């Protein structure tokens, strides 16, 4: 049987999908988390069923791009059963879609979810009255994964027999009678959180605290990270000793110690700061705060040709560029979507965050903190600047913005932990698959020459990797980097940004960079093209041209920007003198203007 999960946005469809199929698809307390049709399989009562999770929609007409794709799927009718997931507190609105689904003449079961929110706000649903409406409505609680399968199994066994075939009637008036609406859904907390000044302040403090806790000098992330890195180094030494004692050959020892432990192990040390940073992002999503902040920031973002909804993608970009590019489907305007995709690669993802910490930490934790925060901030400003230039070039008007605000759930630690653990799991999977593969390939290329002869560590300069790395490092000469290891790391960084570190670690990089070169190289890493997966996402969402354009534009920009940064850092005195003279000039012009006005007034 083909089962389709549909319903209003943020009603819990993907939570149900994950529980049924064992998937780990993204969930969040805001509208438009799911942006494409997801497919999975579930075995219930010995039978295998196909399950489709659709993006949320309020009607079959669809407003945003993802709503339209969901509506199209439903209208095609290529399925056997509709599961209409309804958020209890939005019951009356959900009946619009229910009525339209009824008109599709397919078997429907309505699952009423999140009743606890409705009851907390003083409302309720009378299921005895609802039974007379003509459709099957079932009260469910999708929070508990263990119960969900049982509920669903019962649904299919008991209720599907009732609804098998076309539904005969749906009495919307009767259904509405069963609903006692909540007293006041706009709470005092809502009032505070949608206040521009207050929410901006909270947002700024939350970002600062999470950054500090993640990698500040006395932050827990930094302490745990140092501990893990020391452990990995010690583990490498122990393994090397054991292997040498057992007469293992040099190639095997180096492959395991440098390629595997050095490459992959060095990244695991960054798990604690990454965990803390992701905790902050997950909490914003799960609590419903992100939707309120995006509304507050709508006016500001509109100046850059974007709207409040773009903030979802921008903030998600701090976690993963690929996901943030896919999130742009939630935007109703195709031009705004393309504009946002232009700017998103400038936002530093969590993989780049690891690179910043790795390089910058060599120059002290205060320096690392300040440099990382500056790069993040500057990336955000650049993303907005690119959008601004695009909107000015096209001379476009501001687009309208409407958004449903989800119910606020400030006590949502349990809901936060799930996606957080999932993101950590994804990181570990990535490290143990892609990064491990890149590390081993890097090590092998660094250990053989073009005649495929094994090279000991003192002849690594003759390796294949050295040849390609030197090619890349040629363009980095102006920033004081003339090392094939950095060049090689930049190439592997194109597969996954974390591979930049694993490559340097497996090549035993000795941190010989001057502080100016380190800043310049990090500026390059911050803005050079995103990983291949992200480029693939750009191709899918905006076409091949934009993906190629992104690659070329980001490379050129990163290169020129890193040259500029290096030049300015090297000539700090010249820079300060330039700033002083510019300020003096502006001051002189302003004073001149005032005097002119004064004289003009005098003459009049």
């Amino acid at each position, binding site marked *: 049987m083909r089962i389709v999960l549909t319903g209003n946005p943020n009603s819990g469809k993907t939570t149900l999908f994950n529980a049924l199929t064992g998937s780990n698809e993204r969930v969040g307390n805001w509208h438009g988390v799911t942006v494409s049709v997801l497919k999975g399989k579930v075995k219930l009562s010995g039978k295998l069923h196909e399950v489709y999770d659709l993006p949320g929609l309020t009607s079959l007409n669809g*407003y945003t791009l993802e709503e339209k794709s969901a509506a199209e799927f439903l209208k095609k009718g290529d399925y056997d059963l509709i599961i209409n997931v309804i958020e209890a507190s939005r019951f009356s609105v959900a009946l*619009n879609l229910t009525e339209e689904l009824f008109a599709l003449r397919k078997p429907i079961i309505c699952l009423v979810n999140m009743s606890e929110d409705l009851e907390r706000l003083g409302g309720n649903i009378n299921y005895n009255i609802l039974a007379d409406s003509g459709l099957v409505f079932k009260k469910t609680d999708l929070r508990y994964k263990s119960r969900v399968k049982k509920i669903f199994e019962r649904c299919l066994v008991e209720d599907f027999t009732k609804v098998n075939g076309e539904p005969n009637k749906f009495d919307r008036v009767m259904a509405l009678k069963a609903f006692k609406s909540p007293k006041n859904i706009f709470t005092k907390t809502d009032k505070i959180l*949608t206040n521009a000044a207050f929410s901006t302040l909270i947002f700024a403090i939350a970002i600062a605290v999470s950054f500090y806790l993640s990698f500040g000098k006395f932050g827990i992330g930094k302490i745990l990270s140092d501990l893990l890195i020391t452990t990995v180094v010690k583990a490498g030494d122990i393994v090397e000793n054991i292997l040498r004692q057992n007469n293992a050959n040099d190639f095997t020892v180096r492959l395991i110690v440098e390629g595997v432990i050095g490459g992959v192990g060095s990244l695991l040390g960054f798990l604690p700061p990454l965990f803390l940073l992701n905790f902050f992002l997950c909490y914003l999503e799960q609590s419903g705060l992100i939707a309120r902040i995006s*509304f507050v920031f709508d*006016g500001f973002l509109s100046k850059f040709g974007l709207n409040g909804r773009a903030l979802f993608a921008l903030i998600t970009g701090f976690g993963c560029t690929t996901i943030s590019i896919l999130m742009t489907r939630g935007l109703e305007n195709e031009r705004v979507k393309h504009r946002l995709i232009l700017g998103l690669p400038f936002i530093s993802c969590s993989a780049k965050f690891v690179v910043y910490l790795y390089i910058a930490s060599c120059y002290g934790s205060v320096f690392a903190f300040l440099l990382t925060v500056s790069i993040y901030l500057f990336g955000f400003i650049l993303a907005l600047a690119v959008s601004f230039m695009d909107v000015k070039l096209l001379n476009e008007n501001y687009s309208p913005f409407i958004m449903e605000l989800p119910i606020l759930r400030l006590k949502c630690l349990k809901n936060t932990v799930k996606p957080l653990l999932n993101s950590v799991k994804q990181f570990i999977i990535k490290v143990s698959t892609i990064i491990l593969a890149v590390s081993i390939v890097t090590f092998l290329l660094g250990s053989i020459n073009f005649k495929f002869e094994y090279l000991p560590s003192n002849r690594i300069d003759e390796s294949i990797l050295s040849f390609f790395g030197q090619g890349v490092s040629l363009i980095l000469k102006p920033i004081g980097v003339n090392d094939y290891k950095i060049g090689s790391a930049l190439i592997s960084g194109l597969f996954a940004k974390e591979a930049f570190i694993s490559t340097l670690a497996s090549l035993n990089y000795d941190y010989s960079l001057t502080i100016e070169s380190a800043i310049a190289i990090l500026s390059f890493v911050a803005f050079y093209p995103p990983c291949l997966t992200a480029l693939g996402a750009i191709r899918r969402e905006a076409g091949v041209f934009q993906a190629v354009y992104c690659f070329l534009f980001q490379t050129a920009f990163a290169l020129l920007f890193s040259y500029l940064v290096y030049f300015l850092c090297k000539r700090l005195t010249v820079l300060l003198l330039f700033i002083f003279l510019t300020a003096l000039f502006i001051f002189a012009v302003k004073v001149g203007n005032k005097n002119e006005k004064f004289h003009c007034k005098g003459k009049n």
Partner: protein
Amino acid sequence: MNLIDVKNGLTVKILAVSVENKDLLKKLGDLGIKIGATVKCEKNSGGVIVSANNVLVALNKDVASKIEVYLCE
């Protein structure tokens, strides 16, 4: 008057929704923002948050200025 002119916390009835985009008009209707509907307004610098049909809908100034309303007693 339009939604932007309404004082904070007041309940109003919608007289007209003069949004040109048909999809947006339909979306507003689906969310309960349609002619004859009674809604409660909360203003802020971003625009207006309307409480309609037990759903909180945030409208920016551009959209809010296109919704004509009158005060309910």
